[in-house]
């Protein structure tokens, strides 16, 4: 197997095609994106005197679709400039160009004839041994492969991406009988390593795995709502984060995806499924049909289960649909006792256990929801897959469920749930009964690898590919060297240890500071390198503001100074430790989380890393060495005779406007990551293993720690004057508040080194002292305390 992907052709520039093209561009592949040509001229083209053969006209549809995609939020591209990697064209003129491509992905309209006609043309130009895959979600792959050449069939399979393809991890791969094994292997490998996907191979059954189970789950919730008389708003409260599903829960998700799309899949399933015991679940209830008739499809028609309106005061307000009266009603303040009781439990499985235990209406709802789901998935094996872990993986990666249904079932216990299920008239598959008798569970851990119960051999088997990466979750129980409330130190082997945060939102408090110091101590004594990474939702949301707020309110300024000093010293220890320290952040790495990364020898960032020094939002400046690092990086960037003031301005505005990167690529541009030093990994799964390898390489090369610089060039008055003048202009123009201006000037005083008459050279300590004193001074301001209070109590950034 020696395939290389340099160029990809994406045929079809609709919402999925164009976004798939963007994701290939994200990872550095050249993309050819084609769509149909218009059959009629538009007014502008007539005015310009163009005819239907003019290239501008022929590419118009592709251009329009692509430009629409570029405007999508969240952004389909890691960086705007990556759009240049995509060449646009049309089927008439540019199809021959697919002969240069290594992979052709068909994403045209879901119509068998149209697809097959296109395949005939593809056969004319496709080079042998070029991958040819379809993104269909509704047409059997086997049917699409009919009438094709031998080589086409061997290289053909389904590659089903989920919308939005940059963000949703799932890639379903559906082979036909003729697809070569090595083709599947390569696409799986490429999908995982290069595209950063969770690749799940599926059988060629209707809607494959994720949509089959996901749509079932959604439809069953709709039926339960009707049956048990819940409101739309209640259902969303009950089926969101509380049970480990996305915040948009059931109906907000429907509104975003579009009700018509979901119903289309449900109706297709209803027609296509022959031996599905829960077939009637896919029947669309009257109320939903009425919504379809009224075109209340969700965001795209401006109203669905929810509707955004402007109230009398001109403020926007969200109303929710009452499915009995078909009126939109103001949102209610819902107090559900069972919900409140479960909410405080940090562990998802415990929350679910709490929610289903009891006899209340709410308990019953959850029992029906989960038990129904358990029965359904058990009966889908071996129909849709032989391997139960694939259902879990598909639901987590495709529908953003926190934990897969089999894993939840494990946590509730088969022996406890099955009798309850039977009572409710739900029947799990026979193989589950066999398992129960043998007291087996769906999953177990063996030597740091997760194993699943294989129904063919009736044994636990290691999940294939899991030896290719490191999962803290799997090794935590056996390899933890030390731990406290906020973090754990886990041995990764080969002399490398990992510090894992696990506080709430991974905020940094005294436990984590203690953990960092402990990790440094342990590495120095017995190991060779330290990695800071975790498997939480976010790398770190920043320092624990609660602690700072408390000290500030109690006017314990000396202690506050000490706390900041300890943080700064800990950062310096990371930086100057006599061994390599690598941070491997993902998702949010804000404030203190960003500062930790900035003080490591190397950052191996996941592509989806949102970094930022956002301290101004809570009325302070970055004082954990973040401002100092920016001054240092500025100093390193400036070359003799540069117009340095503009570089200073950029650095100042990055912190001053609390800019957060929308991808790791952007973090380079903002200066949070260092070019030629820090790296990006697209595969979240492989990130930690890669970080470990990077650490080992650094050791191999011969590692020496950096030497504390005493020659950081700061601009003094040259920089500071711009800050005073610029901040005033921004405030007068109502872009920032009076207090923002005050903090900005304080920030400027640090970044410029203060009112120095000439450009000067200073030490790290000098800047750290400025940072700390400024931080403590700002904490004595009422407005800073108000900002902190707002974040702590309401979770909102206050711009006072």
């Amino acid at each position, binding site marked *: 197997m020696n395939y290389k992907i340099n160029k990809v052709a994406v045929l079809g520039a609709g919402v999925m095609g164009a976004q798939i093209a963007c994701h290939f561009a994200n990872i550095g592949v050249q993309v050819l994106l084609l769509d149909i040509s218009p059959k009629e001229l538009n007014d502008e083209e007539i005015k310009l005197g163009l005819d239907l053969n003019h290239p501008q006209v022929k590419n118009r549809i592709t251009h329009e679709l692509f430009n629409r995609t570029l405007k999508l939020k969240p952004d389909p591209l890691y960086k705007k400039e990556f759009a240049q990697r995509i060449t646009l064209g049309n089927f008439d003129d540019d199809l021959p160009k697919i002969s240069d491509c290594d992979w052709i992905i068909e994403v045209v309209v879901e119509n068998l004839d149209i697809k097959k006609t296109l395949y005939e043309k593809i056969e004319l130009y496709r080079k042998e041994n070029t991958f040819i895959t379809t993104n269909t979600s509704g047409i059997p792959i086997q049917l699409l492969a009919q009438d094709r050449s031998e080589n086409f069939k061997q290289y053909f399979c389904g590659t089903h991406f989920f919308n939005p393809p940059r963000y949703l991890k799932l890639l379903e791969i559906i082979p036909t009988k003729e697809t070569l094994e090595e083709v599947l292997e390569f696409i799986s490998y490429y999908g995982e390593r290069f595209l950063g996907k969770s690749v799940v191979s599926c059988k060629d059954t209707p809607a494959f795995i994720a949509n089959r189970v996901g749509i079932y789950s959604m439809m069953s919730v709709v039926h339960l709502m009707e049956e048990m008389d819940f409101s739309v708003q209640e259902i969303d409260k009950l089926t969101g984060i509380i049970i480990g599903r996305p915040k948009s829960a059931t109906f907000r998700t429907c509104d975003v995806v579009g009700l018509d799309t979901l119903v289309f899949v449900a109706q297709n399933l209803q027609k296509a499924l022959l031996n599905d015991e829960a077939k009637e679940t896919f029947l669309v209830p009257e109320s939903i049909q009425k919504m379809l008739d009224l075109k209340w499809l969700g965001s795209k028609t401006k109203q669905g289960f929810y509707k955004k309106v402007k109230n009398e005061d001109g403020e926007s307000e969200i109303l929710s649909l009452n499915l009995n009266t078909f009126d939109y009603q103001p949102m209610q303040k819902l107090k559900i006792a069972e919900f409140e009781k479960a909410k405080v439990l940090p562990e998802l499985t415990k929350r679910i256990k709490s929610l289903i235990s009891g006899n209340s209406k709410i308990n019953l709802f959850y029992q029906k929801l989960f038990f129904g789901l358990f029965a359904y998935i058990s009966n889908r094996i071996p129909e849709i897959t032989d391997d139960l872990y694939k259902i879990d993986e598909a639901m987590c990666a495709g529908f953003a469920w926190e934990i897969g249904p089999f894993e939840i079932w494990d946590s509730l216990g088969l022996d406890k749930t099955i009798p309850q299920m039977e009572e409710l008239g739900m029947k799990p598959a026979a193989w589950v009964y066999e398992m129960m008798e043998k007291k087996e569970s769906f999953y177990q851990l063996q030597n740091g690898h997760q194993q699943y119960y294989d129904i063919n051999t009736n044994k636990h088997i290691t999940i294939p590919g899991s030896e290719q990466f490191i999962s803290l979750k799997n090794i935590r129980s056996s390899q933890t060297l030390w731990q406290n409330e906020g973090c754990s130190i886990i041995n990764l082997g080969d002399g490398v240890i990992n510090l894992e945060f696990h506080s709430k939102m991974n905020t940094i408090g005294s436990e984590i500071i203690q953990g960092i110091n402990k990790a440094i101590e342990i590495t120095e004594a017995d190991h060779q390198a330290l990695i800071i990474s975790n498997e939480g939702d976010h790398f770190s949301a920043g320092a624990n503001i609660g602690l700072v707020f408390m000290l500030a309110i109690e006017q314990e300024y000396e202690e506050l100074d000490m706390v900041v000093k300890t943080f700064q010293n800990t950062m310096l220890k990371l930086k100057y430790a006599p061994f390599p320290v690598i941070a491997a952040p993902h998702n949010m790495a804000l404030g203190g989380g960003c500062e930790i990364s900035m003080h490591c020898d190397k950052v191996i960032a996941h592509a989806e890393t949102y970094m930022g020094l956002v301290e101004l939002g809570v009325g302070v400046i970055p004082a954990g060495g973040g401002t100092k690092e920016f001054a240092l990086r500025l100093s390193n960037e400036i070359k003799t005779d540069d*117009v340095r*003031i*503009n570089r200073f301005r950029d650095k100042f505005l990055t912190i001053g406007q609390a800019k957060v990167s929308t991808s790791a690529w952007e973090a380079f541009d903002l200066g949070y990551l260092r070019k030629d030093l820090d790296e990006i990994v697209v595969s979240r799964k492989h990130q930690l293993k890669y970080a470990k390898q990077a650490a080992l390489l650094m050791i191999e090369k011969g590692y020496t720690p950096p030497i504390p610089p005493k020659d950081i060039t700061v601009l003094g*008055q*040259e920089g*500071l*004057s*711009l*800050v*005073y*003048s610029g901040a*005033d*202009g921004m405030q*007068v*123009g*109502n*872009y920032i508040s009076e207090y923002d201006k005050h903090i900005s000037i304080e920030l400027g005083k640090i970044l410029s080194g203060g*009112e120095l008459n000439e450009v000067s050279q200073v030490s790290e300590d000098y800047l750290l002292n400025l940072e700390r004193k400024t931080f403590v001074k700002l904490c004595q301001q009422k407005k800073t305390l108000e900002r902190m209070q707002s974040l702590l109590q309401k979770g909102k950034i206050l711009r006072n």
Partner: protein
Amino acid sequence: MTAYIIAAKRTAVGKAKKGKLRLIRPDDMAAKLVQEIIGQFPMLDNTQIDDVIVGNAMPEAEQGLNMGRMISLMGLNSVNVPGMTVNRYCSSGLESIAIAASKIEMGLADCILAGGAESMSMIPMGGWRVVPNLNIAKDNPDWYWNMGITAEALQKKYNISREDQDKFAFHSHQKAIEAIANNRFADEIVPIRVIENFVNENDILEQKEHIISQDEGPRKDTTLDGLSKLRPVFDMKGTVTAGNSSQTSDGAAFVLVVSEKKLKELNEEPIARFVNYAVTGVEPKHMGIGPVTAIPKVLKRSGIAINQIEQLELNEAFAVQALAVMRELNINPDITNINGGAIALGHPLGCTGTKLTVQLIHEMKKRKQKYGMVSMCVGSGQGAAGIFEIF
């Protein structure tokens, strides 16, 4: 002694960064213009020109290195004529004429090329390296305010509605479009030939010739409705938009100022006489109101009454600013900017003073009018006004 103007020419005004004049340096543009002007006077020996004075608001980078001297060297094909660059921001181009006239009136010179040149494509407002004085930045930051913010301050002080500003802007475009349609600028514009070297889509170096002979700013498709939908750019809650502010532009303009003696030597008829010029200072934060003190001052110094002024070129830095000035001085809109102003035609900062003088002279000549005035507000709180007598 009297200072006469015997030639007044300008380039068309290009849209900064978008228009074709972005392709030419301001010194090159000015040198070509100067060559054209001198070419009109076969009797004039270049070496008899006493000085070249060019106004420029951001004299650095492409506009640095005393651009005035370079324009002289390139434009006059002689090393014997000196050159200087003057800066009073937006009145630089009027200041250069006033300096030339004063030198002639004092007997220091007989023949001076005075003008202005600015490429806002090449040099941003404020220049490339903005380093304010720390004490001013701390104690009087409004002295450094962005011009748009001063326009908003004026809006608050004089309470001029967004609607009035947009209407004013709309009319500026209408007047300019009509003027172009009626060829009103044809006599004064010297076409500029620009050779563009660029790499085409086939990676081959290609050359294209452009002749720029028409102002690029005025828009036929501007509508009042369109203007009213634009967002404020300087103050989030303000009223000043890209549509009711002057455009950033590239351009050059020059006049040839001579003494009576030189006039006779050359046997030329003057087209205008420099009457007087005044500058005043106002609150920097209300920079836009500058003409309100400068206009009465220059009238008083010249002994001319406001009602003797038959045409006024009042630079439209911002609609709000022009409206405030007109209301305060009770200026007749019918005689003001009759062919449109900077909102439509563009405002190439240091060139503007000369450019407006060129426009005024030619339009008044066509209408056989006598006294005309050029006035503008000037950054950091100044006003300028000059009076010309047209023959």
